[in-house]
């Protein structure tokens, strides 16, 4: 969610009303924005109250004080939405921009528009710059999708051409620089600047996008920087706005947003002059699009979706408060005009939301849905008899968790987990809750294993070592828990019943969870029989008999001390391990007393 900073007094002037902070906070709440903070800032040695306001991520029309003030003023019924006029000069007068084929592989689209006789002040000039910045950060996805360039049109001579050149071949003087540079030098010049995050967008491209006028003056090298020649100043009157990008639709939205916000300062208010762009395929288009469309809604349907009862005219009035002009076509049918500022409206459901906001979410009567369902903690089928062939087949487990057509099944694995957790606590063990993500070292080296041998799921973009892999065992988390509670009285007896993640080519996404039960005992002597006893108790709880149901067999596992470890078998298949941890493992987790551990898969017991 973007947060914008606006001068309170200017905002109030734009709305046409003054508020206390708490009144304004309530207005924001009702409208769906959030007054995050109120700060006093020194600007030109004068104290100014600045509101930090959080704006929903799809409302680009609220990202500047002009748009926000306008929307709130309309919401408070002090004004009506502006009518934007597109002035299209005759074919010989209209400014033209041609896209050349070199741009296609790097940044294929450009759109442009002109604002005439703009009256810039320091304040609205700052706002103009701020809005570009906010758009760049949000809708433009840090200039990857769209980049905006603004120019003093009077310093330029059309027609313009949007080209792409080899970095070494181009030459221009970037904004506020004294010397000309080529593309390679440009990358060097800005590599430590605030622009450095944008350099990779084109750095390794064969051609860099560049816009020229008819005198070969460079307007800009998008998405990095404008040229110095055509820079905007407070005395600029006629502004050319160009948006280049990789997503034409977003270029259009960005251009529409820029001109709808700042045509407010044109001598002919809300009038925008068109530019003709010839795309690579030769097609000619007039910009800005000022996309305006109409959607017809039915009052009854909207009422039904919200759960209110209002008539046509009331609904039209609520829509008007949201900046959507509504016209009653016939009873129950309202034609809604969606202005170019409201690109967030994609579907009639967005109009429904605006009606609900206009009505006030907190004025809607609460009702209880008629939906009548019987909850189900278990499978609807009876639990099947334990049988090695059926139960110990992982694909069946996946199916067991699956939704069965027309027959809602609960998530029995969680029910079983909760029952076993209680058993373990009753056995005197304390529940730990550890992280699923961990380092490669935790699941491999520290347990005496090699990462290559472990079916781990690897994360490609971890910010720290703690998030390199998903755990394949619960033991590292339990050992770390003990390490952090070494000062507690002995013995320390802990457990966790939770999921590990295993890389599994058979699974739909190539990996699957497995529900494990792990127990760890930390004391002055190992006591294999103590943890073994917990296993016996769990098996008894699950009605799995000793020897005919489960048994232990000697095994070797590098995590455990040689000869002090056993594989747990249930109905002939290995479900886990029990034993005394290898002294190296104990030391690897910065512990110094013997540890006994048990870890089994409980999914076979569903």
């Amino acid at each position, binding site marked *: 969610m973007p947060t914008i900073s606006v001068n309170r007094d200017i905002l109030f002037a734009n709305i046409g009303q003054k508020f206390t902070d708490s009144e304004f906070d309530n207005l924001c709440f009702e409208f769906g924005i959030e007054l995050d903070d109120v700060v006093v800032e020194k600007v030109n040695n004068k104290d100014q109250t600045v509101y930090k306001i959080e704006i929903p991520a799809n409302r680009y029309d609220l990202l500047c004080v002009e748009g926000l003030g306008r929307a709130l003023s309309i919401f408070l019924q002090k004004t009506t939405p502006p009518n934007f006029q597109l002035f299209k000069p005759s074919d010989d007068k209209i400014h033209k921009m041609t896209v050349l084929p070199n741009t296609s592989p790097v940044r294929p689209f450009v759109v442009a528009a002109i604002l005439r006789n703009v009256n810039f002040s320091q304040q609205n000039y700052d706002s103009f710059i701020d809005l570009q910045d906010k758009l760049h950060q949000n809708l433009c996805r840090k200039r990857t999708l769209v980049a905006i360039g603004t120019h003093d049109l009077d310093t330029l001579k059309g027609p313009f051409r949007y080209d792409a050149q080899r970095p070494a071949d181009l030459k221009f003087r970037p904004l506020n620089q004294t010397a000309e540079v080529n593309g390679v030098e440009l990358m060097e010049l800005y590599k430590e600047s605030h622009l450095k995050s944008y350099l990779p967008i084109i750095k390794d491209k064969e051609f860099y996008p560049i816009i020229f006028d008819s005198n070969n003056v460079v307007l800009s090298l998008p998405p990095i920087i404008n040229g110095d020649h055509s820079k905007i100043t407070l005395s600029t009157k006629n502004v050319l706005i160009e948006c280049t990008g990789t997503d034409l639709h977003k270029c259009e939205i960005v251009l529409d947003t820029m001109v709808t916000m700042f045509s407010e300062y044109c001598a002919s208010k809300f009038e925008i002059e068109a530019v003709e762009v010839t795309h690579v395929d030769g097609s000619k288009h007039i910009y800005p699009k000022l996309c305006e469309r109409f959607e017809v809604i039915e009052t009854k349907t909207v009422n039904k979706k919200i759960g209110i009862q209002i008539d046509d005219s009331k609904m039209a009035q609520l829509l008007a408060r949201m900046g959507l002009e509504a016209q009653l076509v016939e009873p129950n049918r309202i034609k809604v005009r969606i202005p170019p500022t409201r690109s967030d409206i994609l579907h009639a459901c967005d109009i429904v939301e605006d009606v609900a906001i206009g009505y006030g979410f907190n004025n809607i009567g609460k*009702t209880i849905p008629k939906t009548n369902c019987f909850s189900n903690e278990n499978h609807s089928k009876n639990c099947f008899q334990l049988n090695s062939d059926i139960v110990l087949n992982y694909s069946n487990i996946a199916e067991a968790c699956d939704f069965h057509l027309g027959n809602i099944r609960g998530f029995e694995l969680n029910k079983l987990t909760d029952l076993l957790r*209680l058993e373990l606590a009753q056995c005197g063990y304390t529940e730990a809750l550890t992280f699923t993500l961990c380092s490669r070292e935790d699941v491999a080296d520290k347990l005496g294993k090699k990462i290559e041998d472990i079916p781990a799921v690897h994360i490609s973009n971890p910010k720290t070592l703690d998030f390199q892999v998903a755990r394949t065992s619960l033991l590292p988390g339990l050992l770390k828990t003990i390490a952090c509670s070494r000062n507690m009285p002995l013995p320390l007896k802990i457990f966790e019943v939770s999921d590990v993640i295993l890389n599994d080519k058979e699974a739909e*996404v*190539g990996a699957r969870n497995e529900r494990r039960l792990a127990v760890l005992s930390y004391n002055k002597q190992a006591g294999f029989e103590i943890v073994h006893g917990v296993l016996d108790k769990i098996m008894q709880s699950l009605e799995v008999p000793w020897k005919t149901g489960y048994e232990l067999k000697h095994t070797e596992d590098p995590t455990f001390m040689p000869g002090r470890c056993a594989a747990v078998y249930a109905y002939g298949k290995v479900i886990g391990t029990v034993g005394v941890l290898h002294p190296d493992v104990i030391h690897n987790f910065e512990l110094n007393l013997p540890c006994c551990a048990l870890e089994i898969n409980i999914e076979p017991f569903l």
Partner: protein
Amino acid sequence: MADLNEELLQYIDKNNSLDTLEYANARNLDHQKVIGAIKSLQTNEGLLKSEQKSTKSFVLNDEAQHIAKHGSHEAVIFNLIPDTGILQSELMSLNANAKLGFSKAMANGWIQLDKKNADGPKVAKKVAKINDQVKDILEKIQNLNLSDVNDKSIQDLKKRKLISEVTINSIFVSKGDKFTTKLEKPEKELTAEMLLGDAWKTKKFKEYNLDALGTVPDGGHLHPLQKVRTEIRKIFLEMGFTEMPTNNYIENSFWNFDALFQPQQHPARDAHDTFFISDPSVSTTFPMDYLERVKQTHMNGGGYGSQGYKYDWKIEEAQKNILRTHTTAVSARMLYKLAQSEVFKPTKYFSIDKVFRNETLDATHLAEFHQIEGVIADYDLTLGDLIGVLYEFFSKLGMTELRFKPAYNPYTEPSMEIFAFHKGLNKWVEIGNSGVFRPEMLEPMNLPKNVSVIAWGLSLERPTMIKYGINNIRDLVGHKVNLKMVYDNPICRISK
């Protein structure tokens, strides 16, 4: 100790009373030992009557103790002088305190000095015998025979800093109503032996110290977050919701984002927010006809009355495996399955499970946390229904005053942030998000057009932290928590 108790009782029996200080002095015992024994006897109700006494007394300092043992400095000097006399210089070298002793002895008129002696000044006895009163008095004080010592002598000694005054607390005891010399040792515990026959009836039992804590029971403990999870799970079950299978932490972008009408350039799909998987990096199995409808919906609205996002949707983006960022990915799978049944059946689902975000970590944010989600799918559900269900749900959590704020979420419209008034904090706190799933999400699944799906979500950690007053999430989850916090955590009565 037992012997001393017996001796004391015998003494009181014989003398009717006892003063601890006198008794200790008479028997040359440590006074504190005697007091301790009396106190232990006092625990037998009615055995003794007692009153506290405080006595003024004096203690001898080191010099005074030396005098009491060896005599005063003047007496020592006197005794060093042979009957023939001695040179003053020689006398002075014989004793460390000779100078002081000499002047005192002179003042007492015990000795005389011949300054005209040819070999130098010579000292001789003036009297034949002396009475060393200082030593006598100090001895008496040391033995606490203060009666024969007059006040003037005491003042003198205090002035000479040989003695200092102290207050000694003692106990004067006499026989109580239930005095006896045959004291039975009180029993600490009722034993099995005492229950054989009537032995317990005649036994005395030691009184309990009710100011001490009992023994900590040897039990296990459930984790506080899990306790809250269990309660919230029960609330959903009470309300007729069925739990969704959420045991698939690895998800592909298709189900996590695309199916939810979250565009492929959405910031949530950035590496800054989402953990991507390098192995297994992509998924290859999708319901292809549904995937095609999702694609069309993103690109042009898919014929569902939407504008769509008007961009070039790529399957490569949808294939990317991630750690799921929300359990809504599971809800999407479940709703898709629901839509595949021949007859749509109204459904209420919930889940509480882990989700993962590649966010900046702070006191309230971890890379993994638990998300609670409730979903209802039925014909013609309204926003009022959602509000009504939220009131029911949150009132079960003890939150009865709610407010809703319009919000933005790519897959719900309308979308509402849920705020609850927290009486303890005396302010409105944001507790969750909710909304009506967008037609662009539901219609490609082939759910009937007039089926609405309302849903809400919140984190499990936040209400738990508020409930238990925990400010740092690391004090609640993960391996760094103090096990004592888990041991000492109360039962979870969620609505309190």
